[in-house]
């Protein structure tokens, strides 16, 4: 569709577009900055909407909204059971995390019951205090929904930590030992988590790992265990629905998957699945559907570790036992698992660390030698060609007058030659003369790389606007990177 006409714009502000029209408008707005601005102005020019009360619609809470004595700072996540917000406790002047359950889910009686259970459980959990458990401070109902006030842990989930930091297996085991202690403490007090997975483990800025969302998912499963073979009673566990989601099938023990009441041994199983995923990059069992997954677990078909895994076999043996299909074949308790896991990791720890250090040193050496020996400073041609190559030259000759195409070519060639000289100089100083610290070289190169990107952008804009003089004026100075340092 073309640009928005007055009727469409009017219908948009008055929300009377049909879904098809709306879809067309949306697609157009995605690509037309002019109409987007027009729409923005149109919306701004409307009379102010009536001020809305804070409704308990999880995701709609905006910074500054007030719930009881808590003021929302920002949304920090979308959990399985509700939205999670960072908030300021105005009374105790501390930052807390608020878990908010959407109002519409509280309306049905089933959910009301769920909320009641959750509320009770949260209150009980509030009494459970352990350094490896994200504390629950308070739980109360607000309007139609339940608010759980939890300890605020700056940092992220273990999943993010794994993806971002690529920690060593030792660091991973260390983090899981901490999480495990929290689980063990909770088991001792009679709580079962029921949804242990890397997304529910947090690593704080202090480097300490904790288990979170404790019990928040559990209350609903406290229904009487459904009879074996009944298919409907198994809670629905689709990962993406925002309704009541309890447990995540991929991490669940087979007993739990089949609808049995979750036990501490189920948490143990989920813990092992999570640890397996953290250590080897994949979960131990493959199975696209629930029934296939159960079959794989029952057949004990645990995926082989990747060929070059450094994880010692003693650690793997711990995992395999915790992944046993029958709860009674797993460790008698979380505590027992941790004890064995700790021992297994410590026995091999020192040796592996030494090897690791040696490997790293070797790798560093190799890379230096590779740089230093055959050709310490290879010509930067591939980089330059990405900016100004034959097809581009041809394209420009086709659009610009012959004279100015020649001019542009000369300007760019001169610029890139200057860039090359600067590169050679920087490279030589570091890798041949050893006069310049490597970090300075890297800093310069990142800066100079940025220059090339800008040049690339300028070249891209040439066919519309360009002449050589304008181009010359807009090229960033090569020597602006000379002083780059971190």
């Amino acid at each position, binding site marked *: 569709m073309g640009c928005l006409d007055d*009727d469409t*714009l009017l219908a*948009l502000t*008055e929300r009377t577009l049909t879904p098809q029209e709306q879809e067309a408008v949306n697609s157009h707005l995605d690509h037309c900055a002019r109409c987007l601005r027009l729409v923005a102005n149109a919306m701004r*020019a409307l*009379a102010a909407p009536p001020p809305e009360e804070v409704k308990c619609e999880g*995701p709609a809470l905006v910074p500054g909204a007030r719930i009881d004595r808590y003021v929302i700072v920002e949304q920090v996540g979308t959990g399985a059971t509700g939205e999670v917000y960072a908030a300021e406790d105005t009374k105790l002047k501390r930052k807390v995390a608020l878990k908010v359950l959407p109002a519409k889910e509280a309306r049905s009686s089933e959910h009301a019951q769920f909320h009641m259970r959750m509320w009770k459980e949260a209150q009980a959990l509030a009494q459970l205090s352990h350094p490896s458990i994200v504390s629950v401070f308070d739980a109360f109902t607000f309007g139609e929904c339940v608010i759980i006030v939890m300890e605020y842990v700056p940092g992220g989930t273990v999943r993010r930590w794994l993806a971002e930091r690529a920690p060593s297996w030792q660091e991973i085991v260390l983090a899981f030992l901490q999480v495990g202690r929290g689980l063990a403490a909770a088991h001792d007090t009679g709580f079962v988590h029921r949804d242990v997975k890397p997304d529910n483990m947090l690593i704080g800025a202090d480097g300490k790992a904790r288990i979170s969302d404790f019990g928040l998912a559990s209350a609903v499963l406290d229904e009487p265990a459904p009879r074996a073979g009944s298919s409907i009673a198994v809670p629905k566990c689709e990962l993406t629905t925002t309704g009541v989601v309890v447990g995540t099938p991929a991490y669940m023990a087979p007993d739990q998957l089949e609808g049995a009441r979750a036990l501490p041994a189920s948490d143990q199983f989920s813990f092992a699945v999570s640890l397996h995923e953290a250590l080897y990059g994949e979960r131990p069992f493959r199975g696209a559907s629930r029934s296939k997954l159960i079959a794989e677990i029952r057949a004990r078909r645990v995926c082989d570790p990747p060929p070059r895994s450094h994880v010692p076999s003693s650690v793997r043996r711990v995992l395999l036992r915790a992944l046993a299909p029958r709860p009674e074949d797993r460790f008698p308790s979380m505590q027992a698992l941790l004890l064995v896991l700790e021992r297994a990791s410590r026995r091999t720890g020192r040796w592996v660390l030494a090897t690791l250090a040696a490997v790293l040193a070797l790798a560093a050496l190799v890379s230096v030698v590779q740089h230093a020996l055959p050709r310490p400073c290879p010509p930067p041609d591939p980089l330059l060609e990405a900016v100004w190559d034959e097809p581009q030259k041809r394209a420009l000759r086709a659009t610009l007058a012959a004279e100015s195409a020649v001019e542009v070519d000369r300007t760019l060639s001169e610029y890139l030659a200057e860039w090359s000289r600067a590169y050679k100089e920087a490279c030589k100083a570091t890798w041949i003369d050893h006069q310049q610290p490597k970090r300075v070289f890297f800093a310069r190169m*990142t800066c100079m790389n940025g220059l090339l990107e800008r040049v690339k952008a300028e070249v891209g804009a040439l066919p519309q606007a360009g002449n050589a003089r304008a181009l010359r004026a807009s090229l960033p100075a090569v020597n602006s990177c000379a002083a780059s340092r971190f």
Partner: protein
Amino acid sequence: MGSSPSVTLAKAFDRCLAVGALAGVSRDVARALNSLTEAARGAWPKVTVADEEWARHLAERVDRKAVLASLEALDAAGLYLTCACLTGSDVALAAFDAELRGAPKAALQRLHLDDAGVDEVLQRLRQRLLLGVDGSRGLSHYSGRGRLSAWLRISAVRIASDLRSEKQPVADSEERLLSMAVETTPEIAASRAELREHFRTAFRTALASLTARQRSLLSLSIVEGLGIDRIAPVFGSSRATIARWLAQAKAALAEQTRIQLQDRLQLASEDLDLLMASVRSCLTLSLARALQDRAR
């Protein structure tokens, strides 16, 4: 009004519609025409338009496939006034000028235009609607499907928007997003030039990696400073959905920026940590706050 206007009106309307299949105007349509006309003349008692003229004006604006339904949905008063203006009635033109000083003016003031700016836009609007720019008078484009005041408001906003675009090219909203990100993050604003440059490049690449929808959302929210309540109707979604999309877009932007920065600055350094920390806080918190301040 008695029954005679209804009859002449219906006849004229039928003639103007010139639909062969429609053997005469149905009773319902005649009744609708009559009440439409009564409402219109009631709203502008001093404005007179001949039945023939008025019937043609209406006939040109109804949906021939659903005459009755579209007739009933029209803004009678608005159409009557514009019809009279197009015939050149002085009374109508005076009334129209009064209309311009109502809804459109208030809307322009909400766009934070000063008095001179408001006058300029109203002047242009008047010219475009009454004198016409491309042969036909702009007023003839009024379809009657929305209220006249709303339509005038939209037209005023469009002119204001065009004026703004003349002074401030629209193409670089990404660039403005970027400079806002840089300026509103103290750590980045204060950092050395090359760090800023890294941030810029990383941010730009990160922006490019978002979906078009995410970019439009961020643009409306951050560059235009619209609140969730204002953005929701644009996409025909609930404010909850918009809030979630926005949060996702911001998170994706922060995450991508971080990844890009990490790629670029391979050296672990205090500067990098500082930058990372501020990128994260910048895109989620300080930026949001800075923008709320702007919107206020």
